[in-house]
């Protein structure tokens, strides 16, 4: 083989180095707030184990197949040169075929074993109904007797180290519910109810994301699951089931009036106030329940942090944040705008 000139050899080593660096960087994508390889609950841990098994088997199969391909290339070249026919592969083919069937069957059983318990419909404990909306999540809590307790949005709080059953529905298009660190993925299909169990080992906050393309704002349809210690969870439930506190200050009352008059009540509910009740809202233009808005982590389904600046911008121009969102822009007189922000921030 001819030796390459020094410059060409150098370019080749640089290219090789770049490839190696890029390859080394790829696994960093496996880490992060939505990494399914870093499980935080028993169901997700099972998924990770299954993932590694599948990865191992796939690697083994790939290496074996390419090994045989390599050997057959060598042997074919040999037989062409010597003129003797290439024989003796019948046994290899049979073993290969059998191994494929056995492997695929084993993986099918393993996958079924792992996925089955997710979807069991169980009884007892709190049930949370999550409904995929365009492009946010409505979350309704039901008690042990199946009575509706309250509604919230874009945030699911659960007790840590306790399996919680979710009822997944949709009244528009197909969405898919996925919290990679807590469990499997489950579609939300209009006219059909799916069940899913999730459990977090420790208290913490886990990001979830719609995993089925559902329209222009599919990418900004996220939510948070917050796992709390049992005692804190009970307190949270007690707070959430309460109605909003009526404002006492002048600016707060003015804000409530603005909320009512600007048309917010057409889509949103603030329970227990004179601003609106669940019946005042049109079923078609159903926006998130805002009763305890100020207690939530994010605005616009995981899109913005819940802070005054973001809240103001979201109300004034939601279309620049989430183009296509069903929320219209509001250009309120400045003092009304400040009063509205004050009122919404008081909804702890």
């Amino acid at each position, binding site marked *: 083989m001819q030796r390459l000139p020094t410059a060409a050899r150098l370019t080749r080593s640089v290219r090789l180095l770049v490839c190696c660096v890029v390859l080394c960087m790829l696994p960093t994508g496996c880490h992060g707030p939505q990494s399914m390889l870093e499980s935080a609950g028993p169901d997700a841990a099972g998924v990770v184990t299954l993932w590694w098994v599948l990865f191992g088997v796939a690697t083994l199969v790939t290496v074996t197949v390419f090994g045989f391909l390599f050997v057959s290339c060598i042997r074919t070249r040999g037989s062409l040169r010597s003129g003797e026919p290439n024989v003796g592969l019948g046994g290899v083919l049979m073993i290969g075929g059998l191994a494929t069937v056995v492997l695929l069957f084993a993986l099918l059983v393993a996958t079924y074993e792992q996925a089955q318990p997710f979807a069991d419909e169980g009884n007892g404990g709190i049930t949370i109904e999550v409904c995929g909306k365009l492009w946010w999540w409505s979350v309704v809590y039901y008690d042990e007797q199946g009575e509706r307790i309250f509604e919230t949005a874009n945030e699911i709080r659960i007790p840590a180290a306790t399996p919680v059953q979710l009822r997944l529905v949709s009244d528009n298009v197909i969405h898919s519910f996925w919290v990679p660190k807590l469990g499997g993925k489950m579609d939300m299909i209009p006219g059909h109810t799916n069940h899913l169990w999730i459990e977090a080992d420790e208290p913490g906050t886990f990001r979830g994301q719609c995993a089925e393309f559902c329209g222009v704002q599919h990418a900004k349809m996220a939510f948070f699951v917050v796992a709390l210690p049992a005692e804190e969870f009970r307190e949270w439930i007690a707070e959430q089931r309460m109605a909003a506190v009526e404002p006492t200050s002048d600016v707060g009352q003015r804000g409530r009036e603005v909320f009512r008059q600007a048309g917010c009540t057409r889509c949103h509910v603030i329970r227990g106030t004179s601003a609106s009740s669940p019946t005042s809202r049109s079923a078609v233009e159903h926006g998130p329940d805002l009763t305890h808005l100020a207690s939530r982590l994010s605005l616009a389904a995981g899109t913005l942090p819940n802070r*005054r*600046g973001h*809240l103001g*911008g979201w109300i004034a121009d939601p279309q*620049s944040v989430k183009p296509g969102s069903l929320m219209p822009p509001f250009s309120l007189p400045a003092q009304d705008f*400040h009063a509205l922000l004050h009122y919404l921030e008081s909804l702890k």
Partner: protein
Amino acid sequence: MIVRGSGALGLMALAVGGYLWFDANQASSETRWRVPVADADRGRILLRDYGCSTCHVVPGVPGARSRVGPPLDYLTKNSYIAGVLPNNPQNLVHWIQHPRQASPETAMPDLDVTERDARDMAAYLYSGG
């Protein structure tokens, strides 16, 4: 010869003088927008955290494309801040902290910005030219 030589010298002196004057002006325009004790990189992150980016176009801040408020690019070219305060670092820091105090009719809310945070944000906004 003498007359010619002095003419050339005079031109050179004029050129050097002109350059020095220009340079001095450049320097003063740079110091004019300097915010004392501020970290512009931190300011860029704060512009997102506080939510400025949800209402303003801010170059270099992801997602900052709304026009609820005026765009914040080329801030040093503006004569006034929000049409009320002469544009200088001291006034910008004050505006970021207390917009409603400076202009009671503004729709920009007070965001409880600390002085340090306001200085860092101002430094970033002026760094864009």
